[in-house]
Structures are given as C-alpha cells and as structure tokens.
C-alpha cells in the first residue's frame, strides 16, 4: 500500500509535520535528537524507522537508525510506568495504536461499489480515500515521534537504559504484544488502581499546591475529554459535508454534459467550483482535526498521565502516613522498631522525592500546555483564514459579472458592493 513519508497529494503538505511540535518547549539540544525518519505500512503493522543523533557517550555511534514497531513503543512506555524511580515524573503518554481499519473498510466498500458509479466518480472517491489513508498514516507517525521526543527531552527519562536499548539495539526487541492473560491482568490492575485512586484521593493534602492541582486536573481532564469528543464529531461532520460537495459536483457535471441548452456550460463551471470547494472544505476539516482535535486528544492523555502522577504521590503519602502509624505502633509495643523505622524512612524519602519532582513536572506541564494551545490555536486561526480567503476568492470570481450589474440596483444591499470592492482589493493585492 502506501510507502514512506513521501509527499502525497497536496492534502496535508505543509502541515504534516505539525504534530511534532505539539509540545513546543522541547530542548532540541545536540545531546540527543530523536525522530522518525521513515515509516512503512504493511498488512497489519507499521514499521517505524527511529533515527537518533546523539553526542552522548553512552551510544556507540553518533548517528544511527533502528526499525521499531508499535508494540515496542508500548513496551518502552510500560517499562517507564512500572519503574518505581520514575514515580515522580509525568510519563509521556503512549502513542495510540495505528488504526487503519476504518480506512481499509471504506476502500473495500469502494471497490465493491465500483460498478455502480461513473469512472470519474470512482477515481475521485479513490483519491479521496487514499488521501485519507495517507493522513491517518502521517498522524500515527507523528504521534509516535512525539512520544520519543518527549522522552528524549526529559532530563531524567532520557538517561533510561531501556530507552537507550530501544534506540540503539538494531535487532528485534522480541517484545510481543500482551496476550489475553496479560491483558486480563492489566484490566484488573486498572480496576484496582482506580478503586485505590478513589480511596487515596479522599485523603486531603496538606500542601496547597498539590491540592489545587488535584482539583484542577480532575476537572480539566473531564472537560478536555468532553471537548475532544465534540471536536471530533464536529470535524467528522465537516468532512461528510465536504464529501457531499463531491457528489454534487459530479451530478452537476453529468447534468452539464447532457444538457442541450446553453445552461450546460454554466453547470460545468459550477461543477468545477464545487469540486474546488470540496478540496478546500476537506482541508479545513483536516486542519481542524490536526490543530484542534488532536491537540485536545493529546492533552487528554497527558492530563491522564499527570493525574497518574498525582495518584502515585498520594499513594506514597498514604504509605508514608501508614508507615508513621506503624512506627508509632511498633514503638508503643516496642517490637520491630528498627524495621518500622527503616520502612518509614524509605516511605518518607520516596514521598519527598516524588513531591519535589512532581511539583516541577506539573509546572512544566502547565507551561507546555499553554504553549501548545497557543501555537495550535494561532495556527488554526491562520489556516482557517487562509482557506476562507481562498474559498471566498474562488467562489467570487465567477460571480463578479452577475454581481456587478446587480450592485447597481437601488435596493441591492451595500453588502454586494462591499463584496465587490473587497474582492477587487484582494485580487489586486494578495490572495
């Protein structure tokens, strides 16, 4: 099917690398730079070529590449999560699984329905679907890349041994996806964790900062989830409206070719217009998807990771308090005091370590979030403007003759006149 990150149809040409910069403040220093230079889509898996440039002494070479699959990314992520040492950090959320099912289904349906539509329609729809496939492909590559970049940018995580192995070891890591038993285990673990989370969250925190963060994150996470879902739906409706333009264009074309009166040329022109508009509307919806929906989805996952951090901290706080109580009990009974003392010490250390790093992490999270939103919102607005102007100029061109004469009628609203004047200004100036 599709190979490589070649420049596909102009569908997503400029904006395709945009996702990389979701987290803006990546210290892309020379010490460690990671990116995904290539990707291959096979039957049911995607192979990513992870390319590293580094001046760190840990690596054998300065520049190297390995091929990795999605499961290996997940393995890396899980290894971070399970590592106690990283309990105090926000673990960058794992990239979502590459999902081409919907796209493949559509392509299949198109193939089946080939007989029932005209040649032009078929080619048009095929192109459309291929562009969609390409878009999903690019997105999944970007998501995986973001994950790696985040890890590389994190001062502690970048030193992780597993990470280095991931980057360097050029054989298969023989990480298999979780089998059913393990998935079931995971499921139960999650349930326990969320139950625990509820219990633990009942404990009020002494520290104002964390208390505030907790309430904030909880609410924020829910609202981001909601916004992300709605944004998704909006983008999808936009896309289906754009698809309708396609069909209308084809019908108008058919009308134009078959009509006998002089309206046929008119129809043909209008059909062209609809085609062009469809392309624009499709790009609008794609850009919205990229800048808005994806942003929200990413921060949904990140806020979940932040929540997880808070949970771990609360957990360790509870452990610390329990250890204190145990120590008091031990002292009272004068039994296993030393043991209780050491465990209390450990808990205390752990808790304080987590608290310290958590504070910094959460502050960083906020900074990152604000910057990412700013960047994406600005870009969204700019892209929408660009497309609206383009669409507007394009629609307006054929209307000028009609509008011109109309605008001289006494009751024609000044809007039309204004429209004309603006149009000319735009045409004479930029687009």
């Amino acid at each position, binding site marked *: 099917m599709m190979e490589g990150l070649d420049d596909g149809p102009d569908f997503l040409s400029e904006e395709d690398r945009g996702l990389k910069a979701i987290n803006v403040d990546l210290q892309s220093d020379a010490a460690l730079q990671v990116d995904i230079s290539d990707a291959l889509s096979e039957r049911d898996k995607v192979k990513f070529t992870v390319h590293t440039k580094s001046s760190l002494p840990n690596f054998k070479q300065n520049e190297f590449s390995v091929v990795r699959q999605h499961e290996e990314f997940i393995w890396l992520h899980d290894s971070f999560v399970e590592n106690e040492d990283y309990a105090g950090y926000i673990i960058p959320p794992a990239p979502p699984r590459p999902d081409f099912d919907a796209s493949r289904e559509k392509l299949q349906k198109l193939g089946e329905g080939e007989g029932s539509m005209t040649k032009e329609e078929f080619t048009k729809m095929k192109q459309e679907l291929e562009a969609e496939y390409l878009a999903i492909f690019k997105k999944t590559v970007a998501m995986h890349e973001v994950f790696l970049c985040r890890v590389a940018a994190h001062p502690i995580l970048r030193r992780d041994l597993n990470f280095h192995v991931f980057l360097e070891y050029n054989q298969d890591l023989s990480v298999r996806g979780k089998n059913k038993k393990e998935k079931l285990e995971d499921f139960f673990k999650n349930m326990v964790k969320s139950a625990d989370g509820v219990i633990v969250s009942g404990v009020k925190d002494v520290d104002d900062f964390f208390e505030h963060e907790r309430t904030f994150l909880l609410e924020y996470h829910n609202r981001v989830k909601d916004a992300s879902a709605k944004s998704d739906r909006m983008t999808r409706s936009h896309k289906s409206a754009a698809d309708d333009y396609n069909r209308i264009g084809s019908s108008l074309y058919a009308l134009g070719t078959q009509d006998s009166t002089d309206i046929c040329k008119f129809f043909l022109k209008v059909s062209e217009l609809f085609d062009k508009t469809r392309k624009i509307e499709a790009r609008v919806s794609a850009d919205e998807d990229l800048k808005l929906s994806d942003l929200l989805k990413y921060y949904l996952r990140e806020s979940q990771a932040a929540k997880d951090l808070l949970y771990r901290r609360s957990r360790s706080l509870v452990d610390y308090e329990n250890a204190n109580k145990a120590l008091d009990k031990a002292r009272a009974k004068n039994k296993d005091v030393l043991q209780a003392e050491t465990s209390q010490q450990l808990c205390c250390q752990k808790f304080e370590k987590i608290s310290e790093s958590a504070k910094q992490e959460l502050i960083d999270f906020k900074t990152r979030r604000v910057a990412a939103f700013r960047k994406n919102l600005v870009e969204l607005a700019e892209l929408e403007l660009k497309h609206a102007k383009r669409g507007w100029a394009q629609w307006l061109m054929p209307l000028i003759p009609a509008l011109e004469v109309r605008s001289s009628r006494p009751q024609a609203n000044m809007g039309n006149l204004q429209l004309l004047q603006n149009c*000319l200004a735009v045409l004479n100036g930029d687009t």
Partner: protein
Amino acid sequence: MAAEREPPPLGDGKPTDFEDLEDGEDLFTSTVSTLESSPSSPEPASLPAEDISANSNGPKPTEVVLDDDREDLFAEATEEVSLDSPEREPILSSEPSPAVTPVTPTTLIAPRIESKSMSAPVIFDRSREEIEEEANGDIFDIEIGVSDPEKVGDGMNAYMAYRVTTKTSLSMFSKSEFSVKRRFSDFLGLHSKLASKYLHVGYIVPPAAEKSIVGMTKVKVGKEDSSSTEFVEKRRAALERYLQRTVKHPTLLQDPDLRQFLESSELPRAVNTQALSGAGILRMVNKAADAVNKMTIKMNESDAWFEEKQQQFENLDQQLRKLHVSVEALVCHRKELSANTAAFAKSAAMLGNSEDHTALSRALSQLAEVEEKIDQLHQEQAFADFYMFSELLSDYIRLIAAVKGVFDHRMKCWQKWEDAQITLLKKREAEAKMMVANKPDKIQQAKNEIREWEAKVQQGERDFEQISKTIRKEVGRFEKERVKDFKTVIIKYLESLVQTQQQLIKYWEAFLPEAKAIA
C-alpha cells in the same frame, strides 16, 4: 488561485457604450455617486440578474471577457429603462422566513432581452411570436407574495391561512395592489381547475405544493416546535413559488379562475381536493387507468422532435433526482455540523472556565464564541442550501412530471384520433356492405354516421395538431424558464456561500489576536 485568473477587465476595459446609457440613469441618481467611486461597478440600468445570467453564457472565470455580452445587454437597456418601475422590489414579506428569502425578482421577465440575446441555437422560432405577443399586451409586471401564515380555528378543523399579496400594473386587474387570505386547499383547488382546463390541451401547468398529512396534523394539534414552524415556512415558500410560476405563464395569467383566486375576497371552498373525498378517489382511479394506458398505447411518432424531447426530459429527470438526493444529504450534514459545532462551543467554554492560566482561558472562551457564531453561520447556510437549491430541484422534478403528463396527453389525443380514424373506416365498410345489401334506410344511417365520424376525425387531427403546436411552444418556454431559474438560483446560492466565507474570515480574524495574546 486568483493570480492565475485575470480579473475581469472592469475598470479599464469598459466598453464606451456605457456613456450612451447616461440618460437611463435617472432612476439611480442616488447610487450613481457611490458607483462612480468604485471602479468595478458599471452604471447600466438596472436589469434583473436573470438576464445577465442568460446572457453571459455562464460564469467564466478564466476568460472573463464580458464586453461583448455587455454590449448586447446594454444596447437594449435603453429601451428597457423606461419600463423599470421602482417598485420592482420583491416584497416577499414573510414572518417566519429563513435568513435568506429564496425568490426575489424571478417574477419579472423581460422577454425581449432574452429573445434577442439568446446566442444559443434558437431551437424554437416561437420566440418571435412571443415577442409580438408580449409587445402587444401590457408590460408583464406582476408580483405575488405569500406571507403571514396564520392558524385559524382549532383542533382537527384548524387550518393555516396565508395572505396572498399581488402587486401589478396589468390592466386586467381592477386594482394595482391587493391581498386576500387563502388556505392550502384553495391553492390545490386552483391547480385542479387550471389543470382540468389546460393540461389536456398541452399547456404545462405548474404543479401545486404537496399535501402532507403528517406536517399539517402537527400544526393542527398545536405543537409549537421548530419542526412545525419549519414545515409552515417550507409550505409558504412553496406556495409562493407555485403562484409565481403560474402567473409567469402568459396563457394561465389570462384565466378567470386565476384572477378570481387572486382577487376575490371570498372563494368557494374547494372540497374536492381533500385526499379522502369522492373526487380524490376518482383522481386516484384515473391516475391508475392512465398508467395502464400509457403502457399499452403504441404511438407512431412522426415527429422526431417529440421523441428527442421526451428522451431529454427523461434524462433530465434522472439527473435532477440524483442531484436532489446529494443536495438533501448536504443539507442534512450541514445541520449536523451546526449542531456539533454548537456542542463543541459549549464544551470549549467549559474548558476555558476550568483552565487556570488566564490568557489561555480567555482565548478558549473566545474560541467558544467564534465557534458559536460559526454554528449560526452553518445554520443559515443550511437554510440557504435547502430553500434555494434543494427546493428548486424538487420543484423542477415535479414540473418535469407535469411536462411528461403533457406529452402523455398528446399521446392520448393521438390515440383518440387514431380511434376515430379506425371507427370511420369501419363505418365506411359498413356502408359499403349496406350498399351491397341495398337497405336504403340503413344506408342513410350509415352515411350519417360516416359524416359524423369524418368530422370527428378532422377534429381529432386538428386537436392533435393543436396540442403538438402548443407543446412545442410550452416546452420552449419551459426550457427558457428552466435555464433562467437555475442560473438565478445557483448564482444566489453561490452568493450565499461567498457571504458565509466572508463572515468566516471576519470571525477568525477577530480571534487571531486573542490567540496570539496567550502569554
């Protein structure tokens, strides 16, 4: 993009014909000053947009050489100017109307301009006849508006009364401006009367709006929700279009029933339009019989024109139906988009509220506002989609059904003629037999019958000729109307799209600085 296309030769390339039109400017002195300031707008007399569209042979973005077209147009404009009455404002007042009133000056035809400027192959030479017709009569100036739907009565006997306003300068009406109240069954009654008088002679009578039991019941029951207001609005617009089409037809306009419908304050209730009445059932039976007949009649088409036309209309019907389906899908999706955008706007506002970084929070609220406005835009656009485009298509699909009906009538006429001929033949044979058998009284009877049938045959032939001629004329007229209608409406639709884009630009431009201000 714009760079590739030449902007139309507006400022510089104006033909000097415009100077000649200075005299025609009297009506527009107020706007002349503003017009002069903008190099783009020429100063011709006001002409309905339809003519332009009929003229310029479709918008051509790449080869915008309007000079020739314009010369044509404005050469005639000098004649036309005097006829323009300032009241040529579409007064389609209607309360629960969508943001865009779909039909503006389509009632106004200036057939002279059209017939002269039709650079398309003049398929029908009747255009010359029409010029003469119109030139003799009054200026064709009549505007009809349907407005103010009011619910009269209660319960299941309730009905909606619409105000039908006519503005005209035609001499056959007693006043120049009048209005009456009519209900839906009155419209149907009018249609059935006109149909019974004219359809079988070959005139294309515009079909009335459709009955809808479900919709009406909701209204009757008093459900004051948006779907019933939408339904009423849809119906009002449909009735308006129906009347406008009917009065555009020169022959139908002369009909006394139509005049009575427009003028008289009291109209006998048309009972036989009810679905379940005796007349209604009779209609259904007739329709079924017709359908069967159509299948059995085998007509020798001597005139290739008719065959060609029928085929064309068949194709057109199919294409229009397909297009209609796509446009309806677009309307549906656009409505969905609007709903989803509104939901997202709310969600974004909530998100903005919970965000504790003030600048970002403000930006998110702004985003929510922008999206809400865009949602409004989408809704309006959906209305435009629907009322302009989709309804136009469904109107034409029904019109084409009427056209097909007219063709069928011609077939029936032919059948009658054929039958008469066959009977005549039989009578002649009978007479011959009588002659041989030598029965004087029977012979006389036979001779009488023969005379009778000869007359019938002649009549049949005449009828057939007449209906063929009428159909040709009608089809020509219909085609012209169709072209005009489509162009006008599509151009209006494009305009609505342009305006939507403009608004979008405004909104996003307002949002951009807010987004940039996030520190």
